[in-house]
């Protein structure tokens, strides 16, 4: 932990800027919250490996001054699993988009959760494929417009929190880019947690999702995160059960972490007790 003042320049690679994100994109707020979380935790930059896949969100790994591994679409968690198991002292952070994490990468997402390997997975959920120009994702939900859903979507959406919980993640939380300080605090807890942590952060894509679905500009979309979400268990849910809940849904510190469990396998194997 540190109380030193935060300067984002200590954590970014100038050479990589300007970033590729559109004006009004929510992903920069996630980056800001994440860097503040890392700063406040007082982590050594050499100990952090940020692994990402492909998509707008995945470019985040290049912007940060950590070890960064920009991999292939959907497979970031598999690379991060190799990094973490090979060198358990590393702090593994995996930012992903909704398509990257839960369409092409869905299988890896549930299996990383099942193993409870100590990785922090951040799902930057803007409900759309931004980089390819606005196609619907498994998190778009019913009745949405996208460039591949001109008549509106008939695909149901995943609930990231429920999926992560049932797959075995031992820390599961949700917030939005409107709640930047809450995001930072949740990320601090997620990174500190020993086990597979999932933090879903609702983010806006005014360029594609907002425009296609008439949700207004970035400011209006962020205001919607304020009005459409509540803290877990809020009384407002009684009147409106459709409100999206924010906060920590699971925090299980008892469940065995994968790398620690493997260390015990090594101990057993070295004694010759197959």
């Amino acid at each position, binding site marked *: 932990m540190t109380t030193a003042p935060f300067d984002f320049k200590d954590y970014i*690679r100038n*050479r*990589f800027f300007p970033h590729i994100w559109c004006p009004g994109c929510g992903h920069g707020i996630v980056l800001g919250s994440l860097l503040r979380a890392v700063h406040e935790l007082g982590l050594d*930059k*050499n*100990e952090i*490996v940020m*692994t990402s896949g492909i998509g707008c969100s995945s470019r985040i*790994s*290049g912007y940060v*001054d*950590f*070890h*960064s*591994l*920009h*991999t*292939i679409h959907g*497979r970031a*968690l*598999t*690379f*991060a*699993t*190799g*990094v*973490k*198991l*090979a*060198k358990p*002292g*590393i702090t593994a952070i995996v930012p992903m988009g909704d398509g990257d994490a839960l369409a092409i990468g869905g*299988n*890896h997402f549930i*299996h990383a959760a099942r193993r409870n390997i100590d990785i922090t997975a951040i799902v930057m959920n803007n409900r759309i494929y931004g980089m390819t120009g606005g196609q619907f994702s498994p998190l778009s939900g019913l009745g949405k417009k996208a460039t591949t859903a001109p008549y509106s979507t008939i695909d149901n959406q995943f609930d990231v929190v429920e999926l992560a919980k049932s797959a075995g993640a031992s820390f599961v939380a949700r917030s939005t880019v409107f709640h930047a300080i809450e995001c930072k605090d949740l990320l601090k807890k997620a990174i500190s947690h020993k086990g597979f942590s999932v933090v879903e952060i609702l983010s806006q894509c005014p360029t594609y999702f907002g425009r296609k679905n008439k949700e207004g500009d970035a400011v209006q979309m962020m205001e919607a995160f304020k009005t459409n979400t509540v803290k877990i268990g809020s009384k407002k849910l009684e009147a409106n059960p459709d409100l999206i809940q924010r906060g920590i849904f699971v925090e299980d510190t008892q469940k065995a972490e994968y790398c620690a469990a*493997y260390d015990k*396998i*090594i101990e*057993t*194997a*070295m004694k*010759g007790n*197959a």
Partner: protein
Amino acid sequence: MTQKDNIRFVQGNEACVEGALYAGLNFFAGYPITPSTEIAEHLSERLPREGGKFIQMEDEIASMGAILGASLTGKKVMTATSGPGFSLKQEALGYACMAEIPCVIANVQRGGPSTGNPTHVSQGDVNQARWGTHGDHAIIALTASNNQDVFKITVEAFNLAETYRTPVIVLLDEVVGHMREKLTIADPDEIPVVSRMRTSVPKGVDYHPYLPREDGRLPMSDFGAEHRYNVTGLFHDMWGFPSNNPKVVSELLRHLVDKIENNVDSMTYYKEYWLDDADYVLVSYGSSARSAIHIAKNRRARGVKIGVLELQTLWPFPSDMVREKCANAKAVLVVEMNMGQIVTQVKSAVDNPDNVFLANRIDGQLISPTDIKTILRMIQGKGV
């Protein structure tokens, strides 16, 4: 009774395991698939005994991702598979080419396409090993026909992966992988082992992870060490930062291909039998070479001037060596278990491609000495 504990009676897949451990393997990720599964099974027991790590991933793609992540932390890594799994690994294999991550992929071939002929032999993935992943690239693929050679070429596969920072494919086949025979494990230091070359650039000095030295090598820095850099599958500059600058793109692509293609001699492994005066040269590899050697020995005893060139490096294809070895042959017979994948390479390598013939078998059965003899007699004009 004295017994040397370095002599084993094992399957080829176990010889591959022993070679990998000898070479310093300390991280394996895999997914079960016939006929390669014994490699994963044995390593799940052996690796943790030596403090190494084994993980069974959710699929072949994940296995490939995991070994690449582990390699970047400084581990020597391997995965093992067969045709369908090899198909799944191709995208990440290309990533390893582009990001220059040392790794070894064992493919114990079975019949394809698709699910094909899982428990039967084939050599149908030769061209897939060369061109399975998309885009221009170079690749190294080694093979062997017996346990002793499987051990040796597996060690060399790790050495080449480290030397050239590239994926290397150990292309075995079902017969070699499952056949049991003697294996003598080499003594320590008997076969040189190439260690990971790490940068000597001190902390605080700009490290260029993708700037080749004059000798073409790129010293690495482990994830977790003091040099923080970017690794990407995008075209990138010497810092690993993405770039679509035409000069950066073309220079990187040339580097990726040239570092392999310009060093063919240093990665060419082969064996030769009775080639000095051979009128007939059998070019073969893997389990097919066992039948080729058998029939050549048999025909020699009957006065036929015949020899065998057994290839252990399939890619990059050693064209110059093959041309030289076949220069005085009346006919060259390529013995392989596919529809003719190496024969096309041999035809382009030699001076007279019209004298190159294919002796193959594609029904899941090991090509027999008699199969080869039949085709040889037809070429000789003797009929069957």
